[in-house]
């Protein structure tokens, strides 16, 4: 769909972008924390099985966890050091998860040893295995194991590969910087992805608020690759996979279906960069680029941060305001609030945003009854009726929500809550309702 010259999807919202403060800052290396806590669940799927023991010394890049089945990936040591413990650690979800407590050796180098490379000439299955072994997951935030997505079942095919450099989430500039600084890796990654998926062409999607990135990628676009860089209108949630498909291809993923059903595949630009970086060198993910920002952060910036860095160390290092009271992993629209500062950075963390009390609008806004203004209806990119869903949720009619109002199609982008003038915590209600529906379904099955 095209509006005012630039492609986009229908509905959506325009939150303040707040990206200017970090978009110009180059990626900087982040120091090691005195203790790194590497959770063995950083992805969707089964936890990795630890292959190290307490007291064992590990090399930076060494595998410390192996995948438990296909729906799982490897973990690698982010630093050379001593395994203090293999025990439970707090996670963003509030639950305790198994983790490896790693104490880096003082002066541990940030240089990385190469492993066995996986060349572009390898077979599809070899590349997929290499991606799983490198521990690659979707770095956009969902942390879905990438190799699972790339395993195309018999009878299905992909004609278009979309590389998602939209980064519509306010405050975050991770992908922006990656596109500017790691374009070579991105295109290498794309070659691997094209090979594995068999797609005919690739589209790199960039939002119009990053003209420098789009320009840079266009210039760097290898002439032998069939594809293009598309600039999209600035609108949230343009970066959601489904929105990209409808904006770029005019195709809609069937309700509760997969992108494969419309012969498309979407991969985050940072994920592509990681694949391009790691596979030729036979390495695993040990660190990632994260935007540390928000009104409460003193030294905002884009940092390459070792996986497992505790949030407390990270914030102390960049400095935060005294009255900070909310920290999210991710951006303010879809990011999850950190339950404590003891949790650590994982592969799925694209940003850390800290707010002070005064900037925290929602804390002080009174909740009014729904006045049926319809803002949410005009915002929902899935064309749901959040107002109705919200009222149904308030009276706990969860099955009606799921059966008649497509509750399960909501992907919690937060657009409805953002625009709601009554400040009704719609997304929160939908999450609760979804959990209740899943529970009752599980109970019934």
């Amino acid at each position: 769909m095209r509006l005012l010259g630039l492609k986009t999807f229908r509905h959506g919202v325009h939150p303040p972008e707040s990206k200017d403060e970090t978009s110009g800052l180059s990626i900087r290396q982040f120091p090691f924390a005195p203790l790194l806590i590497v959770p063995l669940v950083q992805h969707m799927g089964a936890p990795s099985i630890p292959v190290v023991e307490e007291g064992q010394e590990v090399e930076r890049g060494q595998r410390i966890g192996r995948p438990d089945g296909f729906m799982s990936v490897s973990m690698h040591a982010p630093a050379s050091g001593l395994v203090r413990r293999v025990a439970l650690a707090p996670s963003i979800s509030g639950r305790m998860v198994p983790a490896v407590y790693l104490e880096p050796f003082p002066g541990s180098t940030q240089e990385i040893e190469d492993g066995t490379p996986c060349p572009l000439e390898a077979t599809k299955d070899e590349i997929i295995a290499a991606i799983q072994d490198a521990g690659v997951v979707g770095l956009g935030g969902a942390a879905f194991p990438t190799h699972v997505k790339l395993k195309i079942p018999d009878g299905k095919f992909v004609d278009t590969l979309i590389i998602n450099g939209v980064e519509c989430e306010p405050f975050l500039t991770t992908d922006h910087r990656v596109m500017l600084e790691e374009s070579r890796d991105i295109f290498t990654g794309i070659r691997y992805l094209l090979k594995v998926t068999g797609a005919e062409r690739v589209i790199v999607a960039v939002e119009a608020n990053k003209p420098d990135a789009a320009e840079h990628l266009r210039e760097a676009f290898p002439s032998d690759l069939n594809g293009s860089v598309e600039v999209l209108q600035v609108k949230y949630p343009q970066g959601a996979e489904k929105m990209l498909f409808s904006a770029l291809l005019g195709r809609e993923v069937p309700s509760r279906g997969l992108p494969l059903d419309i012969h498309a595949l979407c991969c985050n630009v940072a994920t592509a960069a990681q694949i391009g970086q790691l596979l030729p060198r036979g390495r695993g993910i040990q660190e990632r680029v994260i935007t540390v920002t928000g009104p409460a952060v003193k030294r905002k910036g884009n940092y390459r941060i070792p996986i497992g860095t505790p949030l407390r160390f990270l914030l102390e290092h960049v400095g935060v305001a005294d009255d900070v009271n909310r920290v999210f992993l991710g951006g303010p629209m879809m990011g999850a609030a950190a339950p404590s500062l003891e949790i650590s950075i994982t592969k799925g963390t694209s940003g850390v945003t800290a707010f002070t009390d005064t900037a925290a609008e929602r804390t002080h806004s009174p909740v009014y009854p729904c006045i049926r203004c319809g803002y949410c209806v005009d915002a929902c990119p899935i064309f749901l009726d959040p107002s109705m869903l919200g009222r149904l949720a308030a009276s706990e009619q969860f099955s009606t929500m799921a059966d008649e109002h497509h509750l399960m199609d909501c992907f919690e982008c937060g657009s409805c809550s953002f625009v709601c003038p009554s400040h009704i915590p719609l997304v929160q209600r939908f999450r609760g309702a979804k959990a209740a529906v899943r529970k009752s379904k599980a109970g019934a099955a």
Partner: protein
Amino acid sequence: MANGGKTLEIRTSPHILSGYSVDTIMFNVVLALLPVAGFAVFAFGLAGLLTLSMAVASCVLTEHLICRAAGKPSTVGDWSVTITGLLYGLTLPPSLPLWMVAAGGVICVALGKALFGGLGYNTFNPALVGRAVLQAAFPVAMTSWIPGFAAGRFSSVPSSTLTLPFTSPEYDAITSATPLALWKFGREATATSDLAMGFISGSAGETSSVLILVGGVYLIARNMMSWRIPASIFATVFVFSGALHLVDPTRYASPIFMLFSGGLMLGATFMATDMVGSPMTSRGCYLYGALIGVVTIVIRTWGGLPEGVMYAILLGNAVTPHLDRWTRPTIYGAKGKEAPT
């Protein structure tokens, strides 16, 4: 650590808000209505001022007292009841006895709003509920109009205004007919410039179309009002009455006259757009506006009453749940084939 012993707040995303709030929206509607109210006072003098003040005061007080009686915090602060009061006052004949104004104000808020659960659940526009009940209760008083811009309007009030509670008003000999009544019962058309500028008799707030439009444009520009509803009403009224006018200009008034006379401007701009009672989908808004436009013209042309905007909007309110249901958009991905689950 920098944040000391402070605990982190855990709330679910999104963590930022658009900055729109019910009370800011409502307050802006009040702002947009102020010029209209000001003109009403200018045109009808003391009578207009007293009518509007009494309307607002009775509505606000009723809401406050009902909240108190129900043991809840007063909801007067969200400004919505002020809008109700202002709109209600603007729809009244400026010479209406003040006791009737007050009684209607109580009906607006009690019957139109509080008994259904208050803000957000008032299916019918409360201001129009009050006015419709008053119209049914006191048909004579509700159709007795005084001309605007009368000499001495700032120093005296019509004899009817200060009628003792529960007694019948006495009218001076100065009552005059509205442009719609003049047309309906005498086929006399009023000059368009008089209509647009408000040099006519009628309800307090229906006299100045220009100021009403200014208020509407302000709200639309701030995205606090659906432009689709008034646009659809105006378009429907224009096309429908225009077609009739082409058929027989002596029987059917011109579309311009239809647009600018009576309560159409005020109703279409400020009452039909009341968020609670209007559809939420865009297609629903178009249909809702078309329905209001058609019903208005039908009542004005063939019905017994000279004006039908109020009834048309109330009917629109009643149909809204169905419009919302029928125009519910197809969700993303429902068009494609259903994937195996």
